[in-house]
């Protein structure tokens, strides 16, 4: 048995060694251009933007769905759009944003519907990359389950770091780049682009009750800090909305049942297909302005 075990370990050791070493290499030039690197700037906005502040927390629906300048002009507050990618997981978004919240801040939390229908603390490639490519210190924000869940993504990241295309002929993505964000953190590089072809998508999976429990805990933390929390709904393509109507209504019902201050209704944020950009959650410029206007109206009602 000893020989067998030794040989198996001997076979696997180079594989694990390679993965660990490659993971610890600095981010590749291509990776540094990715939208995940916008988190550095967004953290800095959270740290240094002066009060009165309004902080938006959510997935790419927010980054592709807000015109913060309009918010600033209408509400006379300094907006910070922290959104990057839904796959970073809601748990990470909440844990990352809470430490920057100050007294008097207004926090608008807009989880995507899919956040309620998947593992709350699942792993993802984006989550792994934001730790190992962007900021290793954020590993402290991950739960043990998240740490376990990001392991399967490590080999891919390690192999990616050896690909020549990561170092040569790097062309900046027109949409998904660190340079796609404006000074408030909104993705704006696609505002002049045409709608892309994409398929509608229904929200799938079983409702996860843990998600709301964690939002409740987040709300308590915010209250302790003397800030205000509002929750709202993502701007979601109308066709996808209709396909997911039961799942969406469940989320809305749970918000109201738990006494959150809810901005608008899910139905109100159902976005016409012509206002979408390249996924059921990403809005084009018309969609961005339309959705921002709705949000401003809803915020005005509660901020008076």
């Amino acid at each position, binding site marked *: 048995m000893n020989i067998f075990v030794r040989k198996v370990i001997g076979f696997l050791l180079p594989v694990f060694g390679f993965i660990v070493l490659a993971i610890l290499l600095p981010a590749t030039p291509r990776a540094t251009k990715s939208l995940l690197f916008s988190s550095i700037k967004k953290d800095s906005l959270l740290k240094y933007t002066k009060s009165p502040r309004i902080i938006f927390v959510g997935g790419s629906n927010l980054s592709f769905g807000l015109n913060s300048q309009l918010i600033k002009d209408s509400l006379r507050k300094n907006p910070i759009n922290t959104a990057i990618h839904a796959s970073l997981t809601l748990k990470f978004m909440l844990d990352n944003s809470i430490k920057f919240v100050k007294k008097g801040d207004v926090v608008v939390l807009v989880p995507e519907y899919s956040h309620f229908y998947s593992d709350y603390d699942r792993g993802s490639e984006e989550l792994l990359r934001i730790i190992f490519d962007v900021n290793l210190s954020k590993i402290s924000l991950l739960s043990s389950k998240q740490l376990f869940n990001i392991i399967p*993504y490590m*080999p891919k990241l390690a192999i990616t770091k050896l690909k020549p295309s990561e170092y040569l002929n790097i062309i900046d993505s027109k949409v998904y780049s660190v340079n796609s964000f404006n000074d408030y953190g909104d993705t704006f590089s696609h505002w002049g682009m045409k709608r892309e072809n994409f398929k509608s998508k229904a929200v799938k999976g079983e409702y996860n009750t843990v998600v709301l429990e964690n939002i409740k805990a987040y709300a308590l933390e915010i209250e302790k800090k003397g800030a205000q929390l509002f929750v709202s709904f993502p701007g979601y393509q109308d066709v996808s909305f209709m396909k997911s109507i039961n799942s969406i209504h469940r989320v809305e019902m749970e918000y109201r049942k738990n006494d959150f201050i809810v901005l608008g209704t899910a139905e109100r944020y159902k976005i016409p297909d012509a206002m979408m950009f390249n996924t059921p959650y990403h809005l084009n410029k018309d969609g961005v302005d339309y959705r921002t206007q709705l949000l401003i109206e809803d915020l005005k009602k509660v901020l008076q």
Partner: protein
Amino acid sequence: MLFNSLSFAVFLPIVFFLYWSVAHKELKYQNILLLLSSYFFYACWDWRFLFLLIFSTLLDYFSGIKIAESKNNTTKKFWFWLSIGINLGFLAVFKYYNFFIDSTALALSKLGFVINPWTLNVILPVGISFYTFHGLSYVIDIYKERIKAEKNFIDYSVFVSFFPLLVAGPIERATHLLPQIQRKRIFDYAKLVNGLKQILWGLFKKIVIADQCAKYANEIFNNSGDYSGGSLFLGALFFTFQIYGDFSGYSDIALGTARLFGIELLKNFSFPYFSRNIAEFWRRWHISLSSWFRDYLYIPLGGSKGGIWSKVRNTFIIFLVSGFWHGANWTFIVWGFLHALYIMPSIIFNTNRKSLDTVAKGKLIPSFKELLEMLLTFNLTVIAWIFFRAKDIESALSYISKIFSKSFFTISGLVDKGGVLICIVFIFAFMFIEWLGREKEFAIAGLDTSWKKSYRYVMYYSLVLIILWFSAGGEQQFIYFQF
């Protein structure tokens, strides 16, 4: 706990280590360890169904003893039918109740009687079809006096619950597995290495072939209206390789894992897509189920005795039952029916025992005739898989009619063309390796003798890296876990 999960990658070495280093002194300890780890493995799916598994095990264990001890026929029959009835009753409730109720309601509504059926909202216990069939074969074999009743409860429980085969087979026989459980297992280095290789190949089939094909098959089947006939055919091909990669990959991992514990399971797949006719396909696809139906249904029904009519009838029965075994949906029944139709010519003309050996044995290239036969058989199975995959018969028929339209010659609607192309390249590479290794137990089993050590290691490391690369998509369920 999926075979392709990180949890299993932690679980397996722990059980392996305890088995060979702590429990190896006594066979009893090894079997207790196997049983406890199997129950733990099963509880990771849903601990509530563990009670059902234990109950089913107890039922068959005691029924077996009672049948064997019965002095008269009436008592013997009572225990036999009690066990059969309860086993099939569980299947009927958990798997088929809603199907029967809905089908009856639909039939009545067509006759003008509208009823509001009472359906059950229950989850199908994972592996129920597999462990129920283990129990059934055991009880039937005792009743027919082919085997003796097992008195050791631990040994019998390991036979039913051994974790590599618990959730999706192979469907074992007491005559094959129980003696291995009762015999001292010896640490055989060569066998264990062989087991690891089979696990590696199974993971490749599942993670690289099946899961990649699944992405495109799911997209095309779920939105079939958006695609041309050519794209739909491509979708059907993707599903054809998905289900093969998925189930034979699972079986390879199961066989390889069992071998790590010194246990040989029944072979479940033998390169079915290289079959020259449907009869050969069924000797190579899900072998443990086909042989189960042959031994416990086809032969008791009279088998091939009694003339053509009886052979035809019995063949249709086993294919329809086999289809129904897969799931409570008419699509599976039609899938079985189609295969029965396909196999009919060879049943009628008595050619079903043709092509018993491996195609183009000892040669690299098959003859033109063999190639045509393989292509025809393969395409017939592709058409049948459409019914297997479709959500209902209407969808399957419209899918097929669109394939056989003018748009068959156009590929349109595909969004991720690059990904599709990569997937096709992998399928070709996979089938090429399968072709080279088709005379072995599994495709890469023969690398020891035919390849230089350095080439072999390049191959193994390449497989490991490709598997690790594709495993980043997350763990995907095995299709046969739902049966």
